[in-house]
């Protein structure tokens, strides 16, 4: 049996769409979300939040609030700082990135509208809110830096005078001789792209319930988070506790998408309040607080050009990016990563050797920006694919043909991108051919032509992409962040033959628990019903990174596979003794120990468990059974597992109203081993729709004074069922050899490609009308403006 990889196991669950073990409780309303928890003597926090984007806190009078009914404590920044130390959101590998120390509650000034300034704790949330209205703050308004384009101007106010200017970070990358390439090129196309600032709008708002037991110096934090271990370390560090005195429990999480992978000032404040009061304190962000405090993302202006030869060879890409990230670089992942990803990966799916990228990451008085689903990818994909379509148009080449010609050949791996990204095995060409077939590209083009003659404007868009998944420590760890790239799984057999798996990766609905169970069941040879997966509790699970950068299946899954193999080995050793056989001749299949040779059933797993735990006296003296195994895994050969894919969109633009109707959407994606096809497909569909949100609807609109104008669900539009298309998904499987499982990530691919493909399809539709749009979201108004109708 040994020597078999997980792919050769009998009765494998790999590649099967088994139902998620935890979904039943969700459809019965028995989910356990953080706000569903309540503890004895629990109090509620609410915050007075800055009404100004930038203002000095002159005085704070809390006396009326303190006297209000139900109020237990009112805390300002100064008192808060005694319990919770400040942090700085920088990482050493983003050289030169700077930021100002940030406090749980600011002491001197507020730097964005909605920043928490004073905390009120009361018997109920309503009472806490009542008291917030009684807190009196005298403000001194300061000049507001709202427009990122002006942040670096001489005349612009510097938000943090200690830092000298509003430049958080700058990166430049250039290959040699690029200017000469542009000068010599047959054609150079240019474009400016704007990416609207948007936010995650998890349906469950950020939620925390913190409990401090002074008798044991034990802090227990129930938190809707993607990264329990990171938060454990951060809470310990800033509250001055040892890590093992802090337990972070993350139950069901109502959507995360990167919003819940960061640490937030109001969450530190809640923890500090529970320590001050030695009582449980709950804080559930309301929707208005969410809009001004959940991280924002994507706000970029990119001016770019591409050189292309007359016969369609993409020769060079050059761009200049500015992105405004709010007043602080977010802790601990920093606000430089999105811009950095764009630098690292723009154009990298093409065999284009000449590349230059420049990015300025600037401070401004808006909600802090940081990593959100598909970090950077929606930007770099739209940028790359927008240029490719424009170049194809300039030389009169079909958009599919120019991609065929320039995409990296499938037999050219491993290889390196101009910026040094290492690609193990990608499948751009195969993926492209597959989608062309799926969508019946030729037929669509014909239909499009026919309809154009009738005044119906339909567009076909294609966007290829690469995506970084399964990151090693190169992502954060090397920069000094307490973020684990490795992950662990502990697996044990109980006395009744059941399997309990504890994993460091977490579940936010993507199906982590199912995937871990499938892998463990397959590695062990047991059925799914025998398996229970425990996640999201730092006291129970092995130290791991949690869920981000599409790592749960690839990294957490591999740890579970290795732990499963090891436990099977251990079980077989016990069974071998019991059966007086050679362990090598035995295997486990469907919960039974069998002979490998003929599959004959020998004894049940339950029997092994019974003997190991209750009748060890029947085992040899020199043998000790060890039916609990932990294995850890981190990708070693490649710093990142790159995946690739392609999306296509078919849509109609009503030139009279500027309304875009999505007709069809296709995705071909290569995430290596597909452990659970249904779950992968649903991740992709959900991701596509989030990407469509950025392309068509979502934008945080600000006034020149830095006031968020549409910070509520009625005015900030997200995709709804009525307008979304059905999405066809197919796969190519290029496994990574870095792990036995061979799985790469899939959670962000949908979001990575959707905005670019929608943009290309809209522009394809608008082509006969001589209009183009490049400012996301592509609202009816922007389309009408492009058509010069308004």
């Amino acid at each position: 049996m040994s020597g078999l990889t997980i792919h050769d196991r009998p009765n494998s669950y790999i590649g099967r769409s088994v139902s998620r073990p935890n979904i039943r409780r969700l459809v019965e309303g028995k989910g356990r979300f953080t706000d569903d928890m309540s503890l004895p003597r629990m109090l509620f926090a609410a915050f007075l939040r800055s009404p100004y984007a930038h203002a000095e806190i002159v005085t704070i009078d809390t006396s009326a609030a303190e006297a209000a009914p139900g109020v237990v404590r009112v805390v300002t920044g100064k008192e808060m700082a005694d319990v919770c130390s400040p942090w700085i959101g920088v990482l050493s590998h983003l050289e030169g990135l700077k930021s100002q120390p940030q406090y749980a509650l600011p002491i001197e000034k507020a730097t964005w509208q909605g920043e928490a300034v004073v905390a009120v704790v009361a018997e109920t949330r309503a009472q806490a809110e009542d008291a917030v209205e009684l807190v009196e703050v005298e403000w001194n308004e300061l000049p507001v830096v709202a427009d990122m384009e002006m942040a670096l101007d001489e005349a612009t106010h510097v938000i943090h005078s200690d830092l000298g200017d509003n430049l958080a970070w700058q990166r430049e990358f250039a290959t040699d001789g690029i200017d000469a390439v542009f000068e010599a090129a047959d054609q150079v196309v240019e474009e400016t792209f704007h990416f609207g600032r948007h936010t995650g709008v998890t349906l469950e708002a950020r939620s925390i319930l913190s409990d401090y037991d002074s008798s044991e110096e034990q802090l227990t934090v129930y938190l809707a988070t993607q990264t329990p271990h990171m938060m454990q370390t951060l809470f310990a560090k800033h509250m001055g506790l040892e890590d093992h005195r802090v337990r972070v429990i993350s139950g069901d999480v109502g959507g995360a998408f990167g919003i819940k992978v960061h640490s937030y000032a109001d969450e530190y404040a809640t923890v500090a309040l529970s320590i001050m009061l030695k009582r449980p304190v709950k804080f559930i962000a309301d929707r208005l607080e969410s809009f001004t405090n959940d991280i924002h993302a994507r706000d970029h202006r990119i001016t770019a050009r591409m050189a292309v030869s007359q016969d369609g060879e993409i020769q060079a890409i050059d761009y200049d990016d500015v992105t405004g990230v709010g007043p602080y670089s977010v802790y601990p992942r920093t606000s430089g990563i999105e811009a950095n990803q764009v630098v690292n990966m723009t154009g990298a799916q093409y065999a284009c050797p000449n590349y230059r990228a420049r990015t300025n990451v600037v401070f401004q008085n808006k909600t802090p920006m940081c990593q959100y689903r598909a970090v950077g990818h929606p930007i770099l994909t739209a940028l790359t694919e927008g240029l490719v379509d424009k170049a194809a148009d300039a030389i009169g080449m079909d958009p599919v043909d120019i991609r065929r010609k320039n995409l990296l050949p499938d037999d050219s791996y491993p290889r390196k991108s101009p910026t040094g990204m290492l690609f193990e095995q990608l499948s751009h060409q195969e993926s492209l051919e597959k989608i062309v077939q799926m969508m019946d590209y030729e037929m669509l083009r014909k239909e499009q032509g026919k309809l154009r003659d009738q005044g119906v404007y339909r567009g076909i868009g294609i966007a290829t992409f690469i995506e970084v998944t399964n990151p090693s420590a190169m992502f954060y760890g090397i920069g000094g962040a307490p973020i684990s790239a490795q992950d662990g799984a502990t697996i044990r057999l109980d006395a009744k033959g059941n399997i309990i798996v504890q994993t460091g990766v977490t579940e936010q609905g993507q199906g982590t628990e199912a995937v871990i169970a499938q892998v463990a069941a397959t590695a062990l040879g047991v059925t799914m019903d025998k398996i229970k997966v425990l996640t999201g509790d730092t006291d129970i699970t092995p130290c791991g990174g949690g869920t981000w950068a599409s790592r749960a299946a690839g990294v957490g899954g591999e740890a579970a596979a290795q732990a499963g193999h090891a436990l099977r080995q251990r079980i077989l050793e016990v069974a071998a003794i019991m059966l007086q056989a050679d362990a090598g001749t035995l295997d486990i299949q469907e919960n039974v120990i069998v002979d490998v040779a003929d599959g004959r059933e020998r004894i049940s797993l339950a029997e092994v468990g019974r003997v190991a735990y209750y009748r060890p006296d029947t085992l040899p003296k020199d043998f000790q059974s060890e039916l609990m195994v932990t294995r850890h895994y981190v990708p070693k050969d490649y710093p990142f597992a790159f995946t690739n894919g392609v999306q296509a969109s078919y849509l109609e633009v009503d030139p009279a109203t500027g309304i875009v109707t999505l007709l069809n959407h296709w995705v071909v994606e290569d995430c290596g081993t597909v452990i659970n096809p249904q779950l992968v497909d649903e991740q992709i569909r959900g991701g596509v729709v989030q990407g469509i949100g950025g392309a068509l609807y979502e934008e945080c609109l600000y006034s020149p004074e830095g006031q968020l104008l549409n910070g509520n669900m009625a005015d900030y539009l997200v995709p709804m069922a009525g307008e979304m298309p059905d999405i066809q998904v197919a796969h190519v499987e290029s496994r990574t050899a870095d792990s036995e499982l061979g799985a790469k990530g899939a959670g962000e691919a949908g979001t990575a490609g959707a905005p670019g493909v929608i943009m290309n399809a809209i522009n394809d539709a608008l082509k006969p009308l001589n209009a183009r749009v490049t400012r996301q979201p592509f609202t009816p108004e922007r389309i009408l403006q492009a058509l010069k109708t308004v």
Partner: protein
Amino acid sequence: MDKAVQVSMSVNSEAVNRTVEPRQSLADFIRNELELTGTHVGCEHGVCGACTVRLDGQIVRGCLTLAVQADGCTVETIEGLTESGEIADLQNAFVTRNAAQCGFCTPGMLLTAAELLAADPGASREEIRKHISGNYCRCTGYQAVVDAIESTARNRLGEAS
């Protein structure tokens, strides 16, 4: 001024008598006083639909209805519908089709879909999409949800004929 009010209602077929603050929403009442936490709160301004419950047989926004307004009424929540088995087929379809990811929208989505299924099991895909267009789901992209509702509708029609 804001003195507490005595209310009695039937919640999931159980008689409930409580004293409530007038300002407490029906959603908060259900969650906090009755500890029926399957009803979720996603916005408190009527937009997301996570708080959807049945009031006298019709779906309503739990966040825009006051608990005092439910006095003398019949209230049903996801827990009640689960218990009665009324939407067991729909719930099974959600499970097999993976129509819930994080599950936060799911109770509201199920109650909303149940109303359509009861009124019009012949509803087209497009009608299903329109009917649930007041319920946010940030995870699924809606297709699986529409599929699950559609297959339940088709099964019910099949059984009826």
